[in-house]
C-alpha cells in the first residue's frame, strides 16, 4: 500500500519535472533558431507586433494583452467575488446559503469553452456592444469580463474561507459595544481576514492570466499591433499566442514560430508560479493569531 501511494506521488513529481524540462528545452531551441535582428522583448521597428511567421516576436504586445485582460477580469471578479463571500459568510441565512454556495461551485465547474461562448453570445451583444459600440465584436473587454466571471468562484471561495476563519468572538466583541452589523463587517471582520483576501486576489489574478480558452475565443486573437491598451480593441494574450502556435493557426509546425510557444509558456509558468508564491508568503506573514 505504502509503496503504491509513494509511487503515485513519485509519478506526479516526475511529471512536473518533465513539463519543466520540455518547456526549458523548447525555449532553448527557440533562442537557438531565431534571428536576432529584431528585439525579442521589444520590437523597435515602426510597426511592432506579434508576427510569428515573420519571426517577429514583440513580447510587449502579448504581455500587454495579458495585463489588460487580466486587469479587466479582476475589475469584474473582485466586487463580485468579495461581495458574494461577504454575503455568504456574514449575511446569508442558512437557507439561502444552501442555495447560493452550490450555485457558485457550479460556476467553478463550467468548462471555460462554454464561458467563451457565453462571452460571444451574451456579453458581447448584450453588454459591451450596446454600451461601448466597439469596432470589433471580439475585443479585450468582452474577453476580460468573461475571464472575470470565470475566476469569480475562486475569488469568492478563498475569501469566504478567510472570512469564516475570523472567530465569532471578534464579531461579538464588536456587537457588544453597540456596533451595527455593517460596521462590524467593515471594521473588524474584513481587516481580520485581509491576508486571506489578498491571497485570493493574487491567486485569482494568476488564474486570470493563465486563462486560455476565453482569451482566445473572445479576445480577438490579434497581435498585429500597434500595441493597444484600449479594452475595446482586439488583443492577444500570452496564452492565446501559445494556442495559435500550438494549433498551427500561424501555419507553422516547426522552427522558431512554433518553438516560441515554449518560451512564452516558460514565461507564463514563472509568472503564475511567482504570483502563487507571493500569495503563500502573504498568508504566512500576516496570518492572524486572533
Amino acid at each position, binding site marked *: 500500500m505504502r509503496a503504491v501511494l509513494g509511487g503515485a506521488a513519485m509519478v506526479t513529481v516526475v511529471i512536473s519535472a518533465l513539463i519543466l524540462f520540455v518547456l526549458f528545452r523548447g525555449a532553448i531551441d527557440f533562442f537557438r533558431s531565431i534571428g536576432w535582428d529584431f528585439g525579442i522583448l521589444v520590437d523597435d521597428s515602426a510597426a511592432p507586433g506579434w508576427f510569428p511567421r515573420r519571426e517577429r516576436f514583440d513580447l510587449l504586445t502579448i504581455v500587454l494583452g495579458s495585463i489588460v485582460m487580466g486587469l479587466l477580469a479582476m475589475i469584474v471578479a473582485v466586487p463580485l467575488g468579495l461581495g458574494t463571500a461577504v454575503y455568504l459568510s456574514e449575511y446569508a*441565512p*442558512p437557507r439561502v446559503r444552501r442555495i447560493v454556495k452550490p450555485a457558485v461551485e457550479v460556476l467553478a465547474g463550467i468548462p471555460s469553452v462554454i464561458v467563451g461562448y457565453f462571452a460571444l453570445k451574451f456579453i458581447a451583444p448584450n453588454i459591451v456592444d450596446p454600451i461601448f459600440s466597439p469596432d470589433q465584436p471580439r475585443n479585450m473587454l468582452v474577453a476580460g469580463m468573461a475571464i472575470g466571471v470565470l475566476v469569480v468562484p475562486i475569488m469568492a471561495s478563498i475569501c469566504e474561507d478567510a472570512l469564516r476563519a475570523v*472567530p465569532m*468572538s*471578534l*464579531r*461579538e*466583541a*464588536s*456587537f*457588544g*459595544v*453597540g*456596533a*451595527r*452589523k455593517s*460596521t462590524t463587517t467593515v*471594521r*473588524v471582520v474584513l*481587516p*481580520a481576514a485581509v491576508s486571506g483576501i489578498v491571497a485570493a486576489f493574487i491567486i485569482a489574478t494568476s488564474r486570470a492570466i493563465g486563462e486560455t480558452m476565453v482569451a482566445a475565443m473572445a479576445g480577438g486573437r490579434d497581435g498585429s499591433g500597434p500595441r493597444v491598451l484600449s479594452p475595446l480593441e482586439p488583443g492577444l494574450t500570452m496564452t492565446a499566442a501559445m494556442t495559435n502556435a500550438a494549433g498551427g493557426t500561424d501555419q507553422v509546425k516547426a522552427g522558431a514560430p512554433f518553438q516560441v510557444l515554449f518560451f512564452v509558456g516558460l514565461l507564463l509558468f514563472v509568472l503564475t508560479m511567482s504570483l502563487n508564491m507571493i500569495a503563500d508568503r502573504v498568508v504566512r506573514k500576516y496570518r*492572524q*493569531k*486572533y
Partner: protein
Amino acid sequence: MIQVQAVQPERTAESSVVFSVRDLNVFYGEFRAVRDASFDINENEITAFIGPSGCGKTTVLRCLNRMNDFIESARVEGKVQYHGVDLYDPQINSNEVRRRIGMVFQKPNPFPKSIFENVAYGAKLSGRFSKTEINEVVENALRQAALWDEVKDRLKASALGLSGGQQQRLCIARCIAVKPDVILMDEPCSALDPIATARIEDLMQEIKKDFSIIIVTHNMQQAARVSDRTAFFTTEINPESDRRTGVLVEIDSTRKIFSMPSDERTELYVTGRFG
C-alpha cells in the same frame, strides 16, 4: 438585519431596578433552554448568576442585551424590561441596546488591532468625540480598568501581545469606554490565574458605583466575595424528552443565598454537595 427606527430605551430617574424580567423562556429551535425565569436586577449592584453547567446562565445573560439575536435558532419569549422599556419591542434599536448594556466574554477577545484602537473602537463608532476627546476616553477607560500604568507606553502595540489577564482588562476597558449603563460578564475570570482574577474582582468593586454589573461565575467564592445579590439556576429534566431545561431557583442577597437559602437545591449546591 432590519433597522427599525431608533426608539431609545429611556431611563426613568427614580427607579433603582435596571432589569425587570418576567416569565422568560428561551428556546434553541425546539429545545427549551430556560423556563419561566422572573427576576429583578438592581442598579449599582453586582449580581452573580451561579448554577451547574448547562442551566442557562449564559443564555439568560445574553437575553439582557439582545446578544441572542445573532444565534439563528434562538427565540425569546416573556418580558425583559430595561428601565421600564421592553427590550424586545420591535421599535427598539438593538445596537443601541448593546451600547448601553455592554458585555465582557469568557475568553478575552481583543481585536487584532493596537491597544489604543481596541479601546477607542466603540467610542469612535458613536462619532460624538473629537480626536483629543477620544484620547481622553481611552485613557480614562484604561485607568478605570486598572491597565493604564501597564500599557501607557505601548498604546500603539498590538493587543494580542498582552497577557491573558491584561487582555481581559483591556476588554473591560473597551466595554466601559462607550459608557454603558450595565456590564454583563460571562465568566470573565475563567481563563485567568488567581492574581489576574483578584485584579478583576477589585476592579469590579471599583467600577460598581458607575455601573450595574451581572457576573456569571462557576466560582462560588468569587460569587460570595464580589456580589451583592446572587441568582441560583439549576436544571430540571424535561418530562417529554431527556434534555434538561434551566430554571431559576431563587435570587436573593448573597449573604442569604450562602447562609440560609430558601430552597434546598440551593443549599446543596452552595455547600458543594450537588452539581
